[in-house]
């Protein structure tokens, strides 16, 4: 059988999920292309991390979103097990504080029925207080949806990509698609900053750049993405009040509302804001005092106690790729033959990702007449990095005896051992990451995610990278730039 060469543009959660799904079949030779040095650095890295129950999706307005959301919610339960992705399934409560909000919130009970979401029901003030003791006294009731979950989105992307690569997918990082090439009405490949890559099928999962990629292929010239910024505030694990369930304010037509969650790592997180940016502001990840203020203010409607500003350990912003009218553009084209769009994947994109991948597979199979043949020996499982934190001391002792690097704790805030850092470096290399960045390590091992935010451990971690990779300490890359600009005497010697 001649295999179809599939090039997936963008190693975010959608692109990675698709690569994994395609890797199950003999029919495809998959290359996943990513412009950043590592996977999941775009939209997938900075979002609310929620696997939505999907009772907020209106099937009459967005039938595809509603359906794939629900399928995705179900699929993640299997994926997190197969791929060893940290997750929690606390359920979610839409909290209302006024009669108008109550009316809005109750609509979601009806939508839940329409969508087939299980267990969604209205709860009164008493039941709300019992279900969620941390809730704000302003709350007068809520809508409870038990099937909501939380994952670690960047770990999820890493896990999916590791599994995809294990099953034959090739990852090319630091590779930016500059143009989509067609000949005779068919896709022939893409032009990148690293040369031309041949392909029979090109799937556009390029997140914030998806409109531009689509235009390069000559389709959907009126389709434009509006970057919608969402700022988040992250606190440390030891704040006095942490919600057991996902809490959120009643959604408005514009935004899904503000959330209060406890991440899978135990941190209280509040957000997002919803700020539409000018179309060309695709790289504006700046946080603002106003954004933080509005988050802390809104949060009082959710939590009975919001921690003070000085308990903030991180403020960050993500950009959501808002499509016109909120409709996902998922389509396999005949002209040019072989080009597939998965564009404008706004919320519930993370939730639906595994289902979007299956859907695209079905589109490819149908539109391009591919008779799918399952790969024998496809490996569904992937184990995460072995961590010492959370294990019994007896287990840690055994691990150390097998490898002394487990006994050297290099990040005390998060109790991460040298062995974990080295394993993360190895895994990065294995999937094809060329530049080992401290950020990439942070996402895989949590070094620098704690109270000190890396101020104490960064030199040590960078030292480990320096030694393992063979670059001088000053040249270790943090995120996009080197840790140091030169030797301490470089300005004296004039050779910076």
């Amino acid at each position, binding site marked *: 059988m001649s295999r179809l060469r599939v090039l997936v543009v963008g190693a975010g959660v959608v692109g990675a999920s698709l690569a994994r799904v395609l890797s199950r079949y003999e029919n495809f030779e998959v290359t996943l292309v990513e412009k950043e040095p590592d996977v999941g650095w775009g939209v997938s890295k900075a979002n609310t991390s929620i696997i939505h129950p999907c009772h907020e999706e209106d099937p009459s307005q967005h039938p595809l979103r509603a359906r794939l959301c629900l399928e995705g919610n179900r699929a993640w339960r299997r994926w997190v097990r197969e791929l060893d992705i940290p997750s929690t399934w606390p359920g979610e409560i839409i909290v209302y504080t006024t009669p108008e909000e109550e009316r809005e919130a109750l609509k979601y009970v009806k939508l839940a029925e329409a969508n087939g979401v299980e267990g969604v029901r209205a709860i009164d003030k008493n039941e709300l207080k019992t279900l969620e003791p941390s809730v704000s006294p302003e709350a007068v009731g809520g809508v409870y949806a038990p099937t909501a979950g939380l994952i670690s989105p960047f770990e999820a992307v890493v896990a999916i990509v590791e599994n995809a690569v294990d099953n034959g997918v090739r990852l090319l990082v630091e590779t930016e698609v500059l143009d989509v090439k067609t000949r005779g009405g068919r896709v022939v490949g893409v032009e990148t900053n690293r040369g031309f890559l041949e392909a029979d099928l090109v799937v556009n999962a390029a997140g914030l750049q998806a409109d531009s990629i689509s235009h390069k292929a000559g389709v959907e010239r009126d389709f434009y993405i509006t970057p919608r910024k969402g700022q988040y505030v992250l606190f440390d694990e030891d704040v006095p009040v942490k919600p057991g369930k996902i809490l959120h304010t009643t959604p408005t037509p514009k935004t899904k509302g503000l959330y209060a969650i406890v991440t899978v790592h135990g941190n209280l997180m509040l957000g997002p804001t919803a700020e539409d940016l000018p179309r060309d502001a695709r790289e504006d990840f700046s946080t603002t005092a106003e954004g933080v203020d509005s988050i802390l203010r809104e949060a009082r409607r959710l939590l009975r106690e919001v921690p003070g500003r000085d308990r903030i350990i991180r403020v960050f912003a993500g950009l959501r790729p808002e499509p016109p009218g909120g409709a996902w553009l998922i389509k396999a084209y005949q002209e040019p033959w072989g080009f597939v769009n998965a564009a404008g994947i706004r919320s519930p994109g993370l939730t639906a990702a595994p289902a979007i991948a299956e859907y695209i597979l079905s589109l490819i199979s149908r539109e391009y007449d591919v008779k799918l043949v399952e790969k024998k020996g496809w490996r569904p499982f992937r184990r995460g990095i072995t961590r010492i934190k959370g294990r019994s001391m007896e287990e840690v002792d055994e691990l150390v005896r097998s490898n002394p690097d487990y006994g050297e704790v290099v990040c005390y805030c998060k109790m991460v051992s040298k062995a974990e850092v080295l394993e993360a470096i190895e895994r990065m290399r294995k999937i094809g990451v060329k530049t080992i960045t401290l950020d990439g390590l942070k996402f895989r091992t949590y070094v620098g995610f704690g109270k000190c935010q890396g101020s104490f451990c960064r030199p040590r971690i960078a030292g480990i990278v320096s030694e393992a990779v063979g670059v001088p300490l000053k040249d270790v890359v943090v995120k996009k730039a080197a840790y140091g600009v030169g*030797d*301490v*005497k470089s300005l*004296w*010697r004039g050779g910076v």
Partner: protein
Amino acid sequence: MTAVRELVCIMCPASCTLRVNVNGGGLRVEGNRCPRGVEYARQEVVKPLRRVMSVVKARNGDLPTLSVITRDPVPKECIWLVMEKLASLEVEAPVEIGGVILRDVCGTDIVATRRVRRAATSV
């Protein structure tokens, strides 16, 4: 003609604010909590001195740098000369504290302020 200069004494962390009266031929100091302050004020007004510290590259040591300092304070104008002399200096481990790294720079020696042991394997 009197001129009053206000200085912060740097002889110890008490950091007394000194008021120095430069009066024709003489000098009067107020605000000091100990005699060192008077000495410092005099020096600072007539010929300010500073100790200069930096690091130099250490070869084959358990750390890549050796910290050094001028044994005695040097005239303020000399700070840059000291730094210039240190710019391309490299030392070979091991080095003991107090070891002389460079002799006679601006009237004093530059000495090691860290113990750098020879590394087990070359660094």
